[in-house]
C-alpha cells in the first residue's frame, strides 16, 4: 500500500463540513472587510456563479452543452420585468412564474434535442438563442419594448431586507450559490439517479445496461438547469434594474461558458470560483468591455490548450482516491456466504427467456438467420462459435440494444413488443459487454452502485459505503469478492482489468436480474480470476438466475454450461449438453476445419 495521505485519513464527512463552514464564513465575514464597491462586484459575480452553476450542472449530468442559457436567463428576466413593471404583479410571484415558464421551455426544447449528438445540440441551442434575441428585439416588442427593453424594475424584499446591490445582494446571491453547490454535490454523489446520470453523461450505452431512460431524465435536468439560469437572469435584472435584448444575448451564454471552461465542469465549485475572477477582470482591464467576447474567446482557447480540465483542478479530492494507487494487494477472493438477491416477485417462479426466429442483417450481411434459442432460470446456457458467428449480435438483440429484422423476444411466452434496453432491464434481463463498460468519472464503488438505480422491488442504495442498510450492495460485493477493494475507495483508473469485469458483473447483479447475459466474461482474465468467475456463475445458477454465456474459451464454456448452443455464420447449428457438443462432428468441423476426419475431440 502506498502511504495514506492525511486527507484520506479524514472521516468521510470532513470535506463537506469544511466546505460548508468556509462557505458560511465567507457569507458572514466578507461584508466586514470588503468595501461597498467591491462588495457590489462580488455580489454580481454571485449571480454569474448561479448561471455558471446551472450550465455546469447540465454538462455534468447530461454530457451535453448548451448555448441557450443566456436566453433562459432572458426568458426569466423578461417574465419578471414585464409582470412587475407593466402589470404591477408581486416580484416573488413573477420570479417563480419566470423560473417555471423557463423550465417548461427548457423541457420542451430538450425532449427532441437531447437525442441529438455532439454538435447538433450546440447548434440547436445557438439557434434557440438567436430566436429569443430576434423575438425580444422585434417580433414581441409590444411586450418586450424592443431594443430599449424594460427599466425601473423595483428591488424585491426578503425577510424585511431589500435586495440592493451591496451587502444584501451579496448575501442573497452567494447564499443561493452555497446551497446550490451543496445540493448539486449531494445529488451527484449521494443519490442513485445522480450517480446514474453521471454514468450516462459519460457513456450512454453503458448506462443502458442498468436501465436508465437517459433522455427522459436528462430532459428533466435540462429543465431544472434552465430554471436556475432563469433565476440568475431575474437577479441580473434586479441588480441593474433593467432588461434589454443585448444584455441577454449569446454573449451571456459565452460568459457562462467561459466560467465553466476556466473552472472545469467536473465539480460544482470550479465555475463558481471562475465567476469571481471573470467579473473582477473588467475592473482591472478597462478595454475588456469593448472586446469582451473576443477576450473570452482567447481565454477559452488558451485554457482548453493548456489546462483542459479547468484551472481549478480540485487536487484534494483527487488525492483522496490516488492514495490507493498501489496495485491492490488483495486481488478479489470469493466468499460464497451470501446470496444474490433476485426480484422477490420472481424468486419462486421458473422463468424462460426465448428468442424466436430472430433474423438480422447489416447491409446485406446476414448476422443472424432464423435463430431460436431459449434460456431458463437456474440454467447456464453457453453459446459458442467462431468469430463472426453472430453470438454478440444475438446478445445485442436479446438485450434490446439493436432491433432484429424479424423474430420475437418473449419472457414466459409474453412477447415483448418494444425490447429496448430499458424495457429488458425492467423485466430482469441484463447484460455485460465484451469490454467492460466502466465509467471513468465514477469511483469504483459508484461504478457498482449505479446498478441499483433500477433494482426491482428494492430500496435503492446510493453510493454509500455498505455499512448496514445497503444489504443488496453488501451481498453483491461479497459475492463478487470486491468488498475489500471497494472499501478502499479505489480510483477506477488504477483497477486491473479482471476486477473491472467483476465490477461490471456486480453492477449488473445489483439490478436484481432474472437473466444475466455475459459477453465473453473470461476474456482477459488470469487463471485465478477464471476460477473465481466459474464459481460466480455456479452461484448465480444455484440462485435460480438464468445465465447466457458467450465465450471463446471453449474448455471454460463447456465446464460451466449446462446447455451449449453452437453458432456459425448466423445460424444456430446445434444445441446439447457439453458432452454432446464436444463429440459432435459438425462442431469439430467448425473448430478444426473440414480436413479433419478423426475421433479427436475439441481441444479440452
Amino acid at each position: 500500500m502506498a502511504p495514506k495521505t492525511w486527507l484520506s485519513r479524514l472521516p468521510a464527512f470532513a470535506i463537506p463540513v469544511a466546505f460548508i463552514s468556509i462557505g458560511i464564513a465567507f457569507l458572514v465575514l466578507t461584508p466586514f472587510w470588503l468595501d461597498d464597491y467591491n462588495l457590489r462586484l462580488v455580489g454580481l459575480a454571485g449571480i454569474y456563479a448561479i448561471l455558471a452553476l446551472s450550465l455546469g450542472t447540465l454538462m455534468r449530468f447530461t454530457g451535453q452543452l448548451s448555448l441557450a442559457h443566456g436566453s433562459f436567463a432572458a426568458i426569466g428576466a423578461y417574465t419578471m420585468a414585464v409582470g412587475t413593471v407593466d402589470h404591477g404583479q408581486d416580484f416573488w410571484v413573477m420570479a417563480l412564474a419566470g423560473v417555471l415558464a423557463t423550465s417548461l421551455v427548457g423541457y420542451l426544447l430538450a425532449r427532441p434535442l437531447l437525442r441529438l449528438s455532439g454538435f447538433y445540440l450546440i447548434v440547436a441551442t445557438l439557434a434557440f438563442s438567436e430566436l429569443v434575441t430576434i423575438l425580444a428585439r422585434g417580433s414581441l416588442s409590444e411586450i418586450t419594448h424592443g431594443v430599449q427593453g424594460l427599466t425601473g424594475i423595483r428591488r424585491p424584499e426578503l425577510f424585511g431586507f431589500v435586495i440592493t446591490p451591496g451587502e444584501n445582494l451579496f448575501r442573497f446571491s452567494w447564499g443561493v450559490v452555497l446551497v446550490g453547490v451543496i445540493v448539486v454535490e449531494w445529488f451527484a454523489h449521494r443519490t442513485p439517479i445522480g450517480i446514474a446520470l453521471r454514468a450516462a453523461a459519460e457513456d450512454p450505452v453503458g448506462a443502458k445496461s442498468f436501465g436508465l431512460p437517459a433522455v427522459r431524465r436528462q430532459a428533466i435536468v435540462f429543465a431544472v438547469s434552465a430554471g436556475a439560469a432563469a433565476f440568475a437572469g431575474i437577479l441580473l435584472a434586479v441588480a441593474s434594474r433593467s432588461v434589454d435584448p443585448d444584455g441577454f444575448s449569446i454573449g451571456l451564454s459565452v460568459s457562462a461558458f467561459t466560467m465553466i471552461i476556466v473552472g472545469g465542469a467536473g465539480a460544482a465549485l470550479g465555475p463558481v470560483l471562475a465567476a469571481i475572477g471573470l467579473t473582477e477582470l473588467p475592473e482591472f482591464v478597462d478595454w475588456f468591455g469593448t472586446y469582451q467576447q473576443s477576450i473570452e474567446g482567447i481565454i477559452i482557447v488558451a485554457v482548453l490548450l493548456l489546462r483542459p480540465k479547468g484551472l481549478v483542478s480540485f487536487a484534494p479530492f483527487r488525492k483522496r482516491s490516488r492514495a490507493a494507487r498501489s496495485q491492490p494487494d488483495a486481488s478479489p477472493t470469493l466468499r460464497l456466504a451470501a446470496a444474490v438477491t433476485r426480484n422477490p416477485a420472481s424468486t419462486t417462479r421458473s422463468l424462460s427467456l426465448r428468442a424466436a426466429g430472430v433474423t438480422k442483417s447489416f447491409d446485406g450481411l446476414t448476422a443472424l438467420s432464423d435463430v431460436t434459442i431459449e434460456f431458463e432460470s437456474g440454467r447456464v446456457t453457453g453459446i459458442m462459435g467462431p468469430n463472426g458467428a453472430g453470438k454478440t449480435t444475438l446478445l445485442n438483440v436479446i438485450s434490446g440494444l439493436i432491433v432484429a429484422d424479424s423474430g420475437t423476444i418473449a419472457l414466459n411466452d409474453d412477447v415483448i413488443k418494444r425490447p429496448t434496453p430499458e424495457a429488458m432491464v425492467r423485466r430482469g434481463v441484463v447484460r455485460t459487454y465484451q469490454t467492460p463498460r466502466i465509467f471513468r468519472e465514477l469511483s469504483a464503488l459508484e461504478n457498482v452502485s449505479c446498478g441499483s438505480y433500477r433494482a426491482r422491488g428494492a430500496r435503492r442504495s446510493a453510493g454509500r459505503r455498505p455499512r448496514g442498510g445497503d444489504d443488496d450492495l453488501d451481498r453483491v460485493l461479497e459475492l463478487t469478492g470486491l468488498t475489500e477493494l471497494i472499501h478502499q475507495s479505489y480510483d477506477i483508473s488504477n483497477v486491473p482489468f479482471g476486477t473491472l469485469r467483476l465490477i461490471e458483473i456486480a453492477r449488473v447483479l445489483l439490478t436484481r436480474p432474472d437473466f444475466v447475459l455475459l459477453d465473453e466474461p473470461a476474456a482477459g482474465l488470469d487463471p485465478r480470476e477464471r476460477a473465481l468467475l466459474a464459481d460466480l456463475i455456479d452461484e448465480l445458477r444455484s440462485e435460480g438466475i438464468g445465465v447466457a454465456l458467450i465465450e471463446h474459451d471453449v474448455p471454460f464454456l463447456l465446464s460451466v454450461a449446462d446447455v451449449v448452443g453452437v453458432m456459425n455464420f448466423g445460424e444456430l447449428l446445434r444445441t446439447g449438453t457439453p458432452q454432446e457438443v464436444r463429440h459432435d462432428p459438425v462442431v469439430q468441423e467448425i473448430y478444426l476445419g473440414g480436413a479433419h476426419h478423426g475421433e479427436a475431440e475439441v481441444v479440452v
Partner: protein
Amino acid sequence: MTLTQAVQLAIVGLIVGCAYSMAALGFAFTYRVTRFVNFAQGHLLMMGGAVTIALTEGGAPILIAILGAALFGGFIGLITDLVVVRPIARYGLHSVGIATLAVAFMLEGLAAKLIGRDPRFLDSFSGGRVTTVGGVRIQWDGALLVVVTVLLFALLGFYLRHSWGGKAMLMTAENKVGSLLQGVRTGRIEAAAFAISGFVAGLGGALFAPMYSTTYNGGLTLAVAAFAAATLGGLGSLAGALLGGVLVGVVSAFASYWYGGEAGQLSTVVLLVAILSFRPSGLFGLRTGRVDWRA
C-alpha cells in the same frame, strides 16, 4: 402575388442562398473529413465582407481585395485547424466545438477593428447594373455570386472524385486510420479541408458584400443560416449544402415578403430547430446526426 413577383423573390432567395451555401460548404466539408465542425464558418463569411471592405478602403483594386478576403479566410481556416482543432481534438467534440466558437468571437473583435461597429456595404462590382428578363430584375452582382458558387461546388466535386488529392480526402473522411495506413497524410488532408472551407467562405463573403450589410457581430446569424443549410442537406454532403443553402435563402426571402423583414431571419431559425428536432439526417437522408447506439 404575381408570378413575376414570385420569380423575383425566388431569385433574391437564390442569391442569398448561394452566400449561405458558401459557408455551409465549410460546415459540411470539415465535418465530412474531420468529424469536427468549424463553428467559425459564419464568421468567416462575415470576415470575407469585412476584409474586402477594409482592403478597398485602403486603396486596393477590387480583384485584389476579393482575393485577399478569400486568402484570409483560407489562412484562418488553416490556423484554426493547426492551432486550435488539432491540439484540442483529443478532449472531444464539445471542446473542439467550443474552441472554434471561441475563434469566431475573436474574429468579431477583429472585424470591429477593421470596419468599426456600424453596418457596412461594399460598392457594387458592376456599378449596380441590372438586367431585366420578362419583368424580373437580375442584379449582376447577384448573378456573379450564383455563378461562382455553382462553379466552385462543381469544381470541388470534380476534384474529390477525379484527383488523387480528392480521393485521399474521401478516404480520410471514410476511415482516417485506414487511410493513414495506406500512406495518406491525413494531417495535411484535414488542414486542407479547413483551409479550403475558409477560402470558400471568405470568397463567398466578399462576393456577397455589395448586397448585404456587413456587421462585425453578424457572423452568428450567418452561421445559423449556413448551419441550417448544411443540416437540411444532410451534414457532410456537399450537394446537400448547396441545395440546403438555396432552400434556406428562398424560404427566408418569401417569409420576409409575407411577414416583414424579421420573419426571414426567424424562418431560418425555425427551419433549423425543426429539422434538428424531427429530421436531423437532412431532407435528402444522406447523413445522420443521431447517436449510433450499437455497442
